[in-house]
């Protein structure tokens, strides 16, 4: 039997391959040569193979298998269907770029030994793959928790630093709060059959109230993983703490497993979502998108900035999910498919763009040792490869045509524009207003990205040490190029991508956008509606005009270009300190969206001998929600402290009593 006869078996074999590559690192844990030059590139190859296997014969029916793994009488079920294929392609293709970069990135003396790092990294990849394949609640939760733990250890790679330990703890805490909600949701979904396979859940009949409860629990649980407001607090802490390839994987791929989870539970396991469910993720998504991008604009740490930008993109994704549920609930299946395609497409896009940007920051971090935007600048001269490739990601995530970020934004805006046709009073008037928030968030994203790129790569170096920055080396370069090419390809070939994604939407909502009735270069997803876009022609026209202008200007006006010191309105003593800082660039946003922030400001008076200006921008949600909650937990723990005797016999007694009580309840 060739592996192509059973793509599911091939996928499982590749996931096992990842685990073995990770384990091989333990042979010589401190050897950078083995781990970096051999194992990580092998992991990248495995990723490419996984994406290829998952893309092979996309439209073949779902394939199932029982694994001889797990507890007695509780075997693990796995299943490969179009929805899991989409996310497996995302995982494989995006992680290939990240692994290539990581091959050149990890070195000795930075926290965890390279071999151990490789093990955690590849286990993380394999567990994400297993999440996507799992077909019962038990296998899903095991994979989900493995994913959380592996990424926790990766985040805390430099565990010598107290801030990193506490960031890791916050991440672990949020991951587990979310996991409990998911577990409870599965508990409802089995519907009294006590069968925890997904097939049993699909068959279970739930009352509307229970189904709603299951949906809301799943939304909370997966939302905590994805980082929707107000559960986003771990993202801006964990991402700066983690090594850059890990941030790239977490932001690019892991957040998407949460989107996968929401789609799986809502459209597949529950099967028949009620239309009003969609309003919850829609409202949360819009709030998250605006909140994330506004906070991204005022950050001074480049990885925190990108983390908040991920929060924004998760908001955009949840908006699309909500819209798809509303459309599906009222029986508008083609539009529901359009919204879902926007979600899946944006998941893929964000995986590539955000991984590219995080790896770009990784390159800067390695070259300069600085994460603070205020100490960078002018790096495009010293690091042309990293700079120009990051520019691709910046333009893509800013939503500029003809790159990929624009396509999914376009699809989502189209879907939102049709939401006034939803046959529900009031709702049909409020939904189109979502276009205003999505458009505002997209425009602000451009602001954020101009700030990010302009301050890090353009201008004058703000520190003398930056002149020693070195560009990325071979493997790192290959990883960046892979992701940048992905961004361009996803932008230029929307019909091919949507054609593939259509199989997943057929599975979920029974319809797909129209891609067959048009030439390959024209995207017109809704038959009979005049809305079309062609990135290839757009690119050709812009490139054509630019080239023609360049050639004409060159041919007619061939005066030489002279280099001179900057003019700066005749001011002669230009200094790097006179450029806008990250704080300065964020100042208009602080001014306009003042209500979003909890700001502490220390303003100098004109009479001060040594004037000091200080501003700290805090998160209101952290102070209003998490600090009181933490205090309550602390007080409850204090009240129960008498139970903590520190003697094993006492704890065994507790376990015994718990078991007896549970047995009494069950009987």
């Amino acid at each position, binding site marked *: 039997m060739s592996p192509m006869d059973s793509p599911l078996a091939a996928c499982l074999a590749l996931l096992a391959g990842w685990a073995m590559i990770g384990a091989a690192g333990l042979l010589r844990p401190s050897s950078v040569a083995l781990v970096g030059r051999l194992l990580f590139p092998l992991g990248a190859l495995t990723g490419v193979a996984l994406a290829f296997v998952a893309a092979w014969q996309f439209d073949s029916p779902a394939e199932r298998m029982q694994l001889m793994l797990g507890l007695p009488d509780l075997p693990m079920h796995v299943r490969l269907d179009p929805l899991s294929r989409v996310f497996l392609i995302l995982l494989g293709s995006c992680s290939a770029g990240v692994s290539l970069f990581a091959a050149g990135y990890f070195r000795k003396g930075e926290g965890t030994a390279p071999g151990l790092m490789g093990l955690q990294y590849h286990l993380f990849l394999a567990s994400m793959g297993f999440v996507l394949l799992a077909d019962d609640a038990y296998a899903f939760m095991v994979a989900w928790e493995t994913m959380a733990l592996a990424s926790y250890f990766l985040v805390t790679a430099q565990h010598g630093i107290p801030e990193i330990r506490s960031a890791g703890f916050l991440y672990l805490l949020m991951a587990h709060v979310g996991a409990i909600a998911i577990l409870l949701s599965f508990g409802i979904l089995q519907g009294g059959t006590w069968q925890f396979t997904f097939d049993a859940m699909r068959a279970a009949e739930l009352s509307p109230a229970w189904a709603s409860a299951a949906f809301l629990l799943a939304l909370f649980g997966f939302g905590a993983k994805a980082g929707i407001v107000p559960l986003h607090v771990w993202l801006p802490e964990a991402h700066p703490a983690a090594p850059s390839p890990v941030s790239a994987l977490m932001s690019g791929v892991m957040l998407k497993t949460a989107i996968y989870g929401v789609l799986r539970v809502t459209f597949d396991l529950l099967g028949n979502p009620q239309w009003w469910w969609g309003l919850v993720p829609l409202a949360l998504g819009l709030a998250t998108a605006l909140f994330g991008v506004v906070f991204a604009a005022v950050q001074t740490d480049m990885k925190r900035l990108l983390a908040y930008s991920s929060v924004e993109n998760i908001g955009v994704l949840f908006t699309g999910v909500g819209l798809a549920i509303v459309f599906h609930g009222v029986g508008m299946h083609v539009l529901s498919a359009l919204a879902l395609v926007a979600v899946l497409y944006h998941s893929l896009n964000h995986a590539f763009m955000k991984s590219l940007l995080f790896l770009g920051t990784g390159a800067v971090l390695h070259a300069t040792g600085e994460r603070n935007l205020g100490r960078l600048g*002018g790096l*495009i*001269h010293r690091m042309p490869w990293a700079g120009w490739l990051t*520019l691709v990601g910046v*333009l893509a995530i*800013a*939503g*500029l045509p003809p790159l990929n970020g*624009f396509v999914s934004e*376009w699809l989502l805006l*189209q879907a939102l*524009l049709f939401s*006034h046709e939803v046959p529900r009073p009031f709702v*049909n008037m409020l939904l*189109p207003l979502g*276009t*205003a928030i999505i*458009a505002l968030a997209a*425009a602000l994203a*451009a*602001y954020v*990205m*101009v*700030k990010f*790129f*302009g301050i890090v790569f*353009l*201008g*004058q170096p703000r520190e003398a040490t930056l002149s020693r920055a070195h560009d990325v080396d071979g493997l790192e370069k290959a990883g960046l190029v892979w992701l940048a090419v992905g961004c361009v390809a996803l932008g230029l070939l929307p019909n091919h991508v949507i054609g593939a994604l259509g199989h997943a939407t057929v599975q979920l909502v029974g319809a797909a956008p129209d891609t067959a009735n048009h030439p390959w270069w024209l995207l017109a997803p809704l038959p009979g509606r*005049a809305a*079309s*876009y*062609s990135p290839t*022609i*757009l690119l050709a*026209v*812009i*490139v054509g*005009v*630019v080239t023609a*202008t360049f050639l004409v*200007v060159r041919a007619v*006006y061939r*005066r*030489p*270009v*002279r*280099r*001179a*010191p*900057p003019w*700066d*309105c005749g001011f002669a003593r*230009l200094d*790097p300190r*006179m*450029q*806008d800082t990250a704080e300065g*660039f964020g100042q*208009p946003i602080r001014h306009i969206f003042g209500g979003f922030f909890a700001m502490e400001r220390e303003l100098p008076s004109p009479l001060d001998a040594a004037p000091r200006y200080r501003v700290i921008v805090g998160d209101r949600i952290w102070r209003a929600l998490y600090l009181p909650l933490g205090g309550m937990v602390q007080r409850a723990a204090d009240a129960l402290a008498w139970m903590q005797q520190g003697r094993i016999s006492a704890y065994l007694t507790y376990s015994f009593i718990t078991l007896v009580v549970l047995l009494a309840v069950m009987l």
Partner: protein
Amino acid sequence: MSATAWLTQFLEVLAALALAPLFLGWVNACRAWLQNRRAPSLLLPYHGIRKLFHKDAVIATNASPLFRLAPYVVFGAMVAAAAVIPSMGTGLPFRTAADAIALVGMLAIARVFMSLAAMDIGTAFGSLGARREMMVGFLAEPALLMVIFVASLISATTALPLISERLAAQALVLYPSLAFTAVAFTMVLLAENARLPVDNPATHLELTMIHEAMLLEYSARHLALMEWAAALKLFNYACIGFALFVPWGVSIGDTAVSALALSIPALALKLAVAGVWLAAIETVSAKLRVFRAPEFMATAFMFAVLGLLVHLLLGA
């Protein structure tokens, strides 16, 4: 696609390239007359661009290739944008490739590249201008999108030439929603083209300027392209306005060349009126402090959103 369609497409881009500096000169002349000054020649912008093309280019020592690339990209994006705006005819072959959302995207390309180029040299003015340009832009862009969306909800399409065609085909009715968005659009036009009350095109006083601050380090052919692109941007915005609010007088679809010939004087008339109107607004308004500009833009955005709400409530 017929030969007429391609002819329309070609003529439109050519007209945009050729007439944009003249329109700018016309607005400036009208402003001068209204302010009781002697007007400069209508052809002054052409002279300026020609003069700049003939000069030696001087570039800062620490400029990156991005700085030299940006004028071409900004210019290219503006020309490409001109190709989807139905200023003379709606049967444009390019209209299936780029709808109104893509049009806004092309304007965003120009804005982002101009801002990045302004930050490239690392002068105080450059980054200040870039920051302010993006500040105006992040409110103006969604406002423009909302303006277009109201029209596209009325006409059930997002392709600008089709919107224009369908609006023109209807009897002369006053849409309340379009009235709201017309106000919003005017405000966006003023802000995005660095006109009063947001920016003053006549000033070089550093602390009040946005657009000029970003161009300070450019010279010769690069500056000429930037200036030309700015003129094109004003022209494009005016033509977007015509397409949405006065869609009459353009040749519809694949009609004969005679209809196209008629659309040329119609466009000239609209531009002449628009120039007077713009100059009148600029004459009666004072420059806002830079931090009142977001309020101005937020008002525009709110007007556009209100227009959408009015459309959804009244269905008109």
